[in-house]
């Protein structure tokens, strides 16, 4: 039995499905592919897979991963890619299979590219708005929690960022805290911006890479 990390992109139509739907799609593809991976036991056995860091509905993911346990240690990684891609919808493409080097819980940061635009507004203006927001000492937002709404400061969760003006959008490259404890979802930044400016942006979010707490790429 070997822990294997399957790397894939989630884009196009599949960008619009939730993590739960992705999970179901993956399990079905694993089942169809007949790759010898470990199944849960009990009444209704199904392939066992876990995701180190779920991706929100609407985001593109270019370096996403899923962990499975391979029952046959000699099974080729290339075979896994090939078989799985034949069983997946076109919006999900496996591009690499590796051993799981780091534990899933080690994910601490994630980098994103966020394009923002407004119909009939210059992208320079949006860049300015972004800088104004992110330069603040604290960025307070209302967040739903178990005990109703609470105000949190997301500024500490922003590791680094840069804003560049593109032809038809403002482009924000940002590294945010990720993982189970201090997760900052880019949607929080966008809603903070929308609260501040009162505008509703066209948004396109891509998650690029995951990192551990030392900012080493997650492997």
């Amino acid at each position, binding site marked *: 039995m070997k822990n294997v990390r399957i790397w894939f992109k989630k884009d196009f139509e599949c960008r619009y499905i939730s993590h739960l*739907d992705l999970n179901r*799609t993956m399990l*079905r593809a694993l089942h*169809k592919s007949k790759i010898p991976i470990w199944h849960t036991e009990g009444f209704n056995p*199904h392939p066992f897979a876990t995701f180190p860091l779920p991706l929100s509905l609407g985001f593109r993911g270019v370096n996403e991963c899923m962990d499975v346990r391979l029952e046959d240690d000699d099974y080729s990684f290339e075979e896994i890619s090939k078989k799985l891609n034949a069983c997946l*919808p*076109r*919006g999900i493409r496996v591009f690499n299979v590796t051993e799981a080097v780091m534990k899933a819980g080690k994910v601490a940061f994630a980098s994103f590219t966020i394009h923002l635009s407004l119909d009939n507004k210059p992208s320079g203006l949006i860049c300015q708005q972004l800088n104004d927001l992110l330069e603040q000492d604290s960025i307070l937002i209302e967040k739903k929690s178990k005990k109703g709404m609470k105000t949190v400061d997301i500024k500490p969760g922003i590791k680094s960022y840069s804003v560049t003006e593109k032809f038809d959008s403002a482009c924000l490259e940002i590294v945010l805290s990720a993982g189970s404890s201090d997760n900052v979802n880019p949607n929080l930044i966008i809603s903070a911006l929308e609260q501040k400016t009162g505008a509703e942006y066209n*948004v396109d979010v891509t998650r690029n890479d995951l990192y551990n707490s030392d900012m080493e790429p997650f492997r």
Partner: protein
Amino acid sequence: MVSKEVEKFLLKVQKPGRYVGGELNEVIKNKRDVEVRFAFCFPDTYEVGMSHLGMKILYSQFNSVPYIWCERVFAPWIDMEEEMVKRHIPLYALESGDPLSDFDFIGFTLQYELSFSNMLNMLKLGGVPIKTADRTDELKQIVVAGGPCACNPEPIAEFVDIFFIGEGEEVDLEVIELFRECKAQGKTKREFLRLCADIQGVYVPSLYDVDYNSDGTIKSFTPRDGAPAVIHKRVMTDMDSSYYPDNFVVPLVEIVHDRAVQEIFRGCIRGCRFCQAGFIYRPVREKSPDTINAQCHALCENTGYDEVSLSSLSSSDYSQIVPLLEKLTSWTSDEKVSISLPSLRVDGFTDEIMNKIKTVRKSGLTFAPEAGSQRMRDVINKNVQHDELMQTCATAFAGGWTTVKLYFMIGLPTETMDDVADIAHLGQAVVDTYYNTPNHAKGKSVRVTVSASSFVPKPFTPFQWEPQDDIPTLHEKQKHIIESIRSKKIQFNYHDADTSFLEAVFARGDRKLCRVMELACERGFHFDGWADCFSLQKWLALFEECGIDPAFYANRRRSFDEILPWDHIDYGVKKSFLISECQKAYENQTTPHCRLKCSNCGAAKYGRGVCFEKRQNLV
């Protein structure tokens, strides 16, 4: 495929994965390489439509023909519709993203009357004129419809160019082939439709004139241009050689029935007198265990589904159920596939079957006695005996089950308040059976859910002449059940009588209702099958505006010699048989099912199926 324009707002709507396509096994063709483009429309949400077996069969079958590209279209949910209208984005097909108005054929499957408003709304959203008369005479935008509600097409006759009567697998392709020829010959739509009417199973409503008596009933129904006076349904005669897909589109988002589905037979031997499906799909025709087994296996392989559901109107009536389950279980456990067997009858719940399908989870056990008293069950020809039901429940309780759901109908012909109270009493008897079963689950109490829906008289059933109880009477009966329940272990649910009433109006309506439908579309009616949108008050206002009394359709007793709006359509069952069944109902007399005895309903004329089985080893 989803356009840039749509992507701009897709994240603003609920469950955007419904509007993008891109699923595994979706069929993409190059539109320049095909001659016929068919938009298969399901007038409900993606989740409901994608669960529908008929759509899966026809989608695969059309696309297996190289010159046809069949795509899928579903009704956008309210939030999506609003955004689309605001941005002037027409309703589009999931595969190409092209608007509905671009298609040669726009086909609807009509599963329930309350989806009529969605059908018209979808045409409107797709930029297609809703009325036949207002559409182009060029050979495009041909609106076709099939499915159980097509058996009385009259309330939507002014909107649909062609109705498919009966089973679609062959007739659809014949019509498409004719279209291709007509197009090559430069014919108009009018000419094409006239030629279509000669194909068996095709009804072109624009070729018929209807005259009415002063009391609103039909005086005459006259074909024009030599169109056939009677339209005969189509029947697939050999189920083993009938087209069945080896592949389904596997949705990205969760749908209502997210599993492989395998049809095991068509029709039903039982002949319950309220049940339209039991008459319009006659005669029963089975697939062989080998065919079913092979098709199940291919489906699981190609989709990755780990559950396959055996579909029919009454699974346990499949004559070779045990050999079939044996074949299936020879590979399903190795491949970690489970089998489910819905629509089991009370008397089909045998240990032998149960041991083969371990998938009936301990949580759900459902039965449909339909009526509380034995007399009432005899009236509707539901041959379920009280003791049999109790025996089955006792077996299940001994096996660890603790919840039972019972389905009933109220408002059935000849029903008295005592019959109604017996629904509660039957629930009580199930509770008592639990406590009288010595080895029931230790320390657990039983939960019995009693659900009552309102009877809707349907065309082509022995009750097609019957009045529906009016809404106050139905409410009174619901109340009477509640008052008759003595035990806290029984939970009572009932269906909204308002929707049943509207269903009854459209189920047995005539062409005068087209005006109401047209107005409903103008006023933006949609999703009437959903409590979120349905309002009887709004419908009543429309009826009033059109000068139409809906009770004329729902609550009036019709005489056996009245010309019914659907009398020109022949589903194989003779009207005289339906009349005799209705009269037997009044006398509390049952009719044996097709395997016990042929009652000469007329469906034997198709030369196949149960009518020709040897009746020796009777069950």
